[in-house]
């Protein structure tokens, strides 16, 4: 019944052994592999850059929203895909990022650039206590408590009229005029997105990232290997919170306002949807999900009055048939094509 794996000498023929396979592993550090791996992201960035000069203003503005959500979804996926933590409370940090910019201007006349840089730090700071509390619970209870924090943040923002302007939100000319131009705004957000994703990608491939994945796979085992699981999860929560807050600050360039709905649990649901659609198990999946969700959502609203129902059905199908989302399906398709191409040559 059991296959003897390495004991069966014939088994090697599929994948030729020898110095190649062995030296291939430490390779990500080697230059050629690094270059090959960098091709796709660099090409993608170049295409995104060129879009700034080909797309119309309306689409560029939608793309600004997409970029903010790409960072939001990728940051959320550090918890979801990497650490295996389902959080329905990331909007708390997204909203805090937006409010940092808006309220900094409203109360203290802080310049946009200062608050934009400050936002991720505020997000991280708030994520510490929330993470410490929410991560005391597991799985469903963790998800529920993050949801509760999201609702709490929403209620606070709505009820403290003197500080937050309540349900109306904060509107004003706090975004520098240069960035209110669709193209400059888009290019600035693109730059921030590229840097953010690079940093998050680095975290994914770091020792910390590996330990997070190991915790996702088998928490007790990691504990038995001498790791304080709780503290590592809190750290992941804080990092995610920081980038979600940055995404919120990015969103302000698009919305030019901060309002309570940015904090509530429906907003928390967006990045989770995006990650599921694009593929939680892949790094760029959530960003792809953001693109599809944003444009797909506009189409859905046009054709279906019950668009949320349609969205729910789409999600169900994806979770059941493509657990790695669209990105996973694309990767498999790419594999098939590559094999077919090799076979032809």
């Amino acid at each position, binding site marked *: 019944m059991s296959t003897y794996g390495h004991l069966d000498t014939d088994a090697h023929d599929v994948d030729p052994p020898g110095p190649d396979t062995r030296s291939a592993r430490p390779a990500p550090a080697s230059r050629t592999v690094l270059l090959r791996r960098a091709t796709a992201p660099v090409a993608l960035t170049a295409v995104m850059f060129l879009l700034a000069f080909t797309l119309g203003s309306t689409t560029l503005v939608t793309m600004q929203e997409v970029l903010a959500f790409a960072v939001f979804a990728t940051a959320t996926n550090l918890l979801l895909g990497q650490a295996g933590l389902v959080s329905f409370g990331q909007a708390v940090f997204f909203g805090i990022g937006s409010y940092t910019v808006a309220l900094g201007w409203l109360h203290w006349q802080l310049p946009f650039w200062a608050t934009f840089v400050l936002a991720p730090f505020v997000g991280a700071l708030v994520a510490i206590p929330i993470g410490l509390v929410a991560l005391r619970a597991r799985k469903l209870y963790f998800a529920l408590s993050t949801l509760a924090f999201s609702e709490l943040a929403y209620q606070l923002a709505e009820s403290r009229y003197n500080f937050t302007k309540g349900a109306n939100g904060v509107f004003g000319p706090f975004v520098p005029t240069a960035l209110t131009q669709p193209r400059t705004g888009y290019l600035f957000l693109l730059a921030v997105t590229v840097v953010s994703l690079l940093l998050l990608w680095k975290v994914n491939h770091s*020792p910390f990232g*590996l330990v997070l994945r*190991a915790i996702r796979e088998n928490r007790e085992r990691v504990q038995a290997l*001498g790791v304080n699981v709780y503290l590592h999860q809190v750290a992941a929560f804080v990092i995610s919170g920081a980038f979600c807050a940055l995404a919120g600050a990015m969103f302000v360039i698009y919305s030019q306002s901060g309002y309570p709905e940015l904090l509530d649990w429906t907003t928390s649901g967006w990045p989770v949807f995006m990650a599921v659609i694009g593929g939680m198990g892949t790094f760029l999946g959530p960003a792809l999900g953001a693109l599809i969700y944003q444009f797909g959502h506009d189409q859905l609203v046009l054709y279906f009055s019950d668009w949320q129902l349609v969205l729910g059905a789409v999600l169900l199908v994806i979770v059941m048939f493509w657990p790695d989302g669209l990105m996973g399906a694309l990767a498999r398709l790419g594999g098939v094509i590559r094999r077919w191409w090799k076979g032809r040559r």
Partner: protein
Amino acid sequence: MSDETAHDILLSARGLVRDFGPFRAVDGVDLDVRSGTIHSVIGPNGAGKTTLFRLLTGILRPTAGSLEFAGEQLAGRPTHVVARRGIVQAFQTTSIFPRLTAHESVCAALVSKHRRSRDLITWFHRGLAGEASQVLETVGLSDVADEQARALSHGDQRALEVALALAMSPRLLLLDEPTAGMSPFESHKMVQLVQRLAKEEQLTVILSEHDMDTVFGISDRVSVMHQGRVLADGPAPEVRRNADVMAIYLGSEA
């Protein structure tokens, strides 16, 4: 007898008790494990071997009793602290990382050992690839290093389980039924591995096992458990000669 005094006592448990509700799974166990020996704990299913192991590694808190390891009191300390002190377990129910490759799994253990788990910047296998390959080589998994753990054969998964523990460079390695569910061939390889580790790496090993021939073949000392208590304890040949023990063990096994 002479070599008994030659070994220091590495781990010493006194009066370990563990209750599950009204049920006493471990009932006042004393255990002395000498440095550099293979010490086996045998006993029929339900004797309390696994529970005892979980007490030693801190996964469970003892209801009562003390646990001294290399001069330090460890009873009631959390698992990750116990693991840091050098007590590492390979689990009876294979407990691996299904969607990580064998190489990544061992790297995760190495990251923990070298206290690099807070490193957010470097590549995870930076400086670990060589050590990881060595560990995989030791347990005979070099050829499947890049396979996901869930795709490995049962025997290889057991070997990976041991590799995870070995990667921690333990001072005391706990193996809970390492040959459970293995084919005779796989199980023979595992036994050889354990013997080699004890001899070459000077590892101290506590082993639980239900196959008597395996146990007496490789153990320096044996403790016999039954219904949560240690009935007999001593050098392997002596315990083997103890007719009462054999009767109880074989009797309840039948």
